[in-house]
């Protein structure tokens, strides 16, 4: 079996180049294959991994142009493996997530005021069960086309995280959260749906963004693109 891996190194000023590795075909994950290459064929191959059970979010990458977790994907002959998009590549399959992660803070995606304990019903808890399954792997961020026109876009995972807290009955400062996602946030999304199929946890950030838009509307915020002309928020929304 052959896999083609896009390699990149800042050290040698090598631009991205595809390197092909030959392996014995057997039933295993892409991560296991990368580890095998690294420990037996090429110790310079760089990637990140940790839990190997799809909960730590370290090994997101693209195979044939689609975001996957290497630990949850079983490769086929001829697969092309690349790093995530929209983040600086540090080396080979490793990207720098520092900037992407600041989106969580920008979106005020946290519990704002620690109130008294408020009882939740099983239904209350189910409201954001899926959103709180997020592992911050960055797949949705990589798949999002908005970054081509607005690099400051808060982006899918941080907006899902925002909805997680906004929808939480215990949250005491919904206003602050809704305020935080008006600029470079919910209205910049084109609702193209690219973030949805790539989520390894089955989360639908687009859906959460639509929920945030309707909540924003109820709270008196207006889609800036509706006025045309006066405000320029980058990509038009539909």
């Amino acid at each position, binding site marked *: 079996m052959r896999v083609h891996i896009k390699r990149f*190194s*800042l*050290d*040698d000023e090598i631009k991205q180049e595809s390197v092909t590795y030959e392996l014995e075909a057997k*039933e295993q*994950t892409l991560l296991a294959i990368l580890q095998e290459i*690294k*420990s*037996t064929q090429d*110790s*310079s191959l*760089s*990637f*990140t*991994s*940790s*839990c*190997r*059970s*799809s*909960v*730590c*979010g*370290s090994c997101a990458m693209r195979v044939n142009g689609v975001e996957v977790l290497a630990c949850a994907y079983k490769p086929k002959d001829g697969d092309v493996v690349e790093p995530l998009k929209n983040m600086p590549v*540090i*080396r*080979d399959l*490793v990207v*720098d*997530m*520092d900037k992407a*992660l600041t989106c*969580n*803070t920008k979106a*005020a*995606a*946290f*519990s*704002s005021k*620690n109130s*008294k*304990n408020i*009882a*939740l*019903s*099983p239904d*209350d*808890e189910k409201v*954001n*069960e899926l959103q*709180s*399954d*997020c*592992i*911050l792997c960055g797949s949705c961020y990589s798949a999002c086309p908005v970054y081509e026109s607005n690099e400051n876009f808060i982006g899918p995972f941080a907006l899902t*995280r925002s909805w997680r*807290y906004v929808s*939480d009955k*215990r*949250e005491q400062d919904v206003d602050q959260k809704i305020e935080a996602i008006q600029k470079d946030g919910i209205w910049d999304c084109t609702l193209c749906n690219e973030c949805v199929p790539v989520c390894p946890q089955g989360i639908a950030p687009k859906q959460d963004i639509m929920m945030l838009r309707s909540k924003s509307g109820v709270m008196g915020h207006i889609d800036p693109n509706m006025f045309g002309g006066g405000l320029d928020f980058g990509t038009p929304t539909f």
Partner: protein
Amino acid sequence: MVDVLIVGAGGAGLVAALHAKASGASVKVICKSYPTRSQTCMAQGGINAALSHGDEDLVEIHAQDTLKSSQGLGSKEAIDMLCFNGVEAVEWLDRIGVPFSRTSDNKIAQRRLGGATHARACYAQDYTGLKILHTLYDQCNREGIEFCNERFLLNIMTQESDLHVSGVTALNIKTGEVESYEAKSVILATGGYSRLYDRHSTNATNSTGDGIAAALRAGAKLSDMEFVQFHPTALKNSSILISESARGAGGHLLDKNHKRFTDELAPRDKLSQAILKELEDGSGEVFLDIRHLGEKFIDEELPQERKLAKLYENIDPVNELIPIKPVAHYTMGGIEVDNSSQTALKGLFGVGECANHNVHGANRLGGNSLLELIVFGKQAGENAAKYAKESTFTCKSKRVFESDKKSIDALRDFEVEIDFYEKKRAIGELFYRYVGIKRNEKELLSALDEILKIKDELCKMGIRDKSQIYNTNLIEFLEFKNILEIGEVVINSAIKRKESRGAHFREDKPFQDDENFALHTIADNKSISFGGEI
């Protein structure tokens, strides 16, 4: 210079950071990956607290269960501290937004785990650790806590005269540069060393005891390092964890003939020993059976388990048996700390799996490690902040920094003769076989021989990738060196403890010997002895 430097950004590190900050200290966190990628995200079963919903659980009973499971090695004072603060800890997590599963009468749902007399593990499906970790991370973002990600801990800087901590050195993985981080106090929250068992561990690939090894080199003491918990139910081929909650919910363990052979809710040490016996002397195969729990229940309470069993073993637990084996899961031993979470070095604190607070003793109960992070994370954070406030100490020594820089540079110029990846795998096999669920003196001694041989050969090992930037070959080699250092302490401790207790089962000394061994095994960088009050 920062007041409190936290090394490690799993649950323990994040809780410590939040509390140090709340105590008025300036705080910085360095970690070798990103905060939400730590081992804590893999905790599935739950966090213990005697909330007394519905049944008659009390904090005193939680403490009794924990003390009993520690088999004479737990400290009553520390266990009381852990259990009596459990309710407050869970209430705090609830207030900051952890989405715990709920009961039909709007209470936090709880389930029973092995060794517990009551259903006291609060959970969020089988994503308890993940959801706690991410919620803590979000709180750190709220508090503006500074993270320096992808920094690999090299060494702890101390002033030679009085073993006073002054910061740490770390390798910036992204740039390949050695950096020094000065601080008035340092909290190590760097996790355990289960990856000593390499592929025979449920843990993330980077649970390599880096902080423990660095503490040992700097002169701190380690205790009870021979106590390694084997989780009874990991997937047979991949060592991926199947949570205890599967058994708590009524899952059965079956032999090759599909007959039950043991009490599924016995503590992990006893159960792992029973399963090993069945694997070695009995039918040779053991399965976990959760088919009778039904698809709806499995998808509701154990969604991760179903996904992982399908992915790694090609079986669907809804209608098939899950082949399992026990593998290394949690290391009870660690850096010795006092009742303020401080180590033997002034200003150096430890918390989480890397530290030994004497709450788990010879066998940890499921659900107590997440609780430990919250309770002792707070203690460590507050005490480190207090220490920093009172400290007038400044150290400008560049000694450790210079020597680390030199040794990293030397590695980049070195021709490899022996492959360390091969040795890393060999150590894993050696430990699983000889320093695993059952041990005896003869095999321990031969394992020690092997380890010492590898140690001698270390000077011929190194890195083939000489790159500066994001050199994971280098990081894995540094992890390997830490594993090797810790492995030697684990074997020596296991040899010295000539009795059986909890997770340390010596087939040549099958009984607990309280007369001689109701003591902690204490190791420093020179020797191993028994001592310490229990």
